[in-house]
């Protein structure tokens, strides 16, 4: 992992970015119908907002409505079912802290086509900004590495984020990209219609006609 050695060594050294901005950059790099799972709250609100374009909204997104912490497991299930497709999990720090064991499972399975993106603002933003443990010393990239996810790195800045995502699209994973983000409000709100979300996603994955 020599190329990752120029990444920040810890959370404190990573630039604070904007969630909508980097989500847009991520979506802009997806050209092969990659699947994206948006964890609850603002993470998936900005995925929803970033996925709208002149040609409609991308179909290969799944938006959770509850089940806090399950973005990584759901993404892993999609990745197992469709090994030829790259799958991204977008998860907040509070959510990830609820299901840290799933990082061990991803590492143990060596899930090649999976990339986890952590949106870390150190707060339960949607419930009033209470501090999470990442604001009090926990480093999710460090936890991921210790869980066996060797290809885990903090994105130093927006350019580094794009570089890491690009690598994750080209090379085998599993990958984990830590992103420090600010406390900006999301740009839009996801439509809350679970049957439609699931049906769209399955159509986007080619499972349903």
């Amino acid at each position: 992992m020599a190329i990752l050695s120029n990444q920040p060594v810890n959370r404190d050294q990573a630039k604070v970015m904007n969630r909508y901005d980097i989500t847009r950059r991520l979506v802009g790099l997806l050209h092969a119908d990659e699947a994206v799972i948006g964890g609850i709250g603002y993470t998936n609100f900005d995925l929803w907002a970033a996925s709208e374009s002149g040609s409609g909204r991308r179909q290969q997104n799944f938006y959770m409505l509850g089940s806090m912490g399950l973005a990584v497991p759901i993404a892993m299930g999609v990745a197992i079912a469709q090994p030829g497709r790259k799958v991204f999990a977008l998860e907040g720090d509070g959510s990830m802290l609820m299901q840290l064991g799933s990082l061990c499972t991803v590492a143990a399975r060596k899930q090649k086509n999976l990339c986890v993106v952590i949106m870390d603002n150190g707060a339960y933003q949607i419930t009033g900004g209470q501090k999470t443990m990442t604001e009090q010393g926990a480093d999710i990239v460090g936890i991921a590495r210790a869980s066996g996810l060797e290809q885990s790195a903090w994105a130093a800045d927006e350019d580094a984020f794009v570089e890491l995502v690009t690598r994750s699209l080209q090379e085998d994973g599993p990958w984990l990209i830590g992103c420090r983000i600010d406390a900006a409000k999301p740009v839009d709100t996801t439509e809350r219609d679970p049957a439609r979300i699931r049906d769209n996603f399955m159509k986007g994955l080619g499972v349903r006609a």
Partner: protein
Amino acid sequence: MAETWYEIVVEVLKRHNVSLVTYVPDNVLRPLVAAIEADPFFTAFACTREEEALGINAGAYMGGVRCILLMQTSGFATLPNVLASLSVPFSIPTVMMVSERGTLGEFNIGQSLVARTMRPVLDALSIETHTMTRLDEAEFILDRSLVQAFATMAPVCFILSPLLTGGKVFSK
């Protein structure tokens, strides 16, 4: 010809193309897990939590693979939130098999108390549930209920009674 409960389970899962098996280990489930892991038809692995396993199965189902989650009673008790916010509202046919602790000779008071939460939770969420007690009914219950789960896109829970499996016996 399948003769034991776990051979019947393996046979019916294969018939319905249920190929991904996630589980949190349990002593009663051990012969089933062993039979599944010995069969190359299945992808099977243990997860760190039942919630995690349910999430993996939900994702795999949406990606076109049928799945089952194996656990014991106390593990089921960790699932109400994800059943109510993922499986049920998204119409995902989460197939669950629970080895029943807490009854018919339980020796751990925690198990006997947590077991009493299981059926009320399943009922509250209107989840199709079958308690399997007899070897001669096992194939029918599993076969018909898997058809129903996938046709109606609804979760189903199979509770394996000690009457079927022998359960976990108190030994000091």
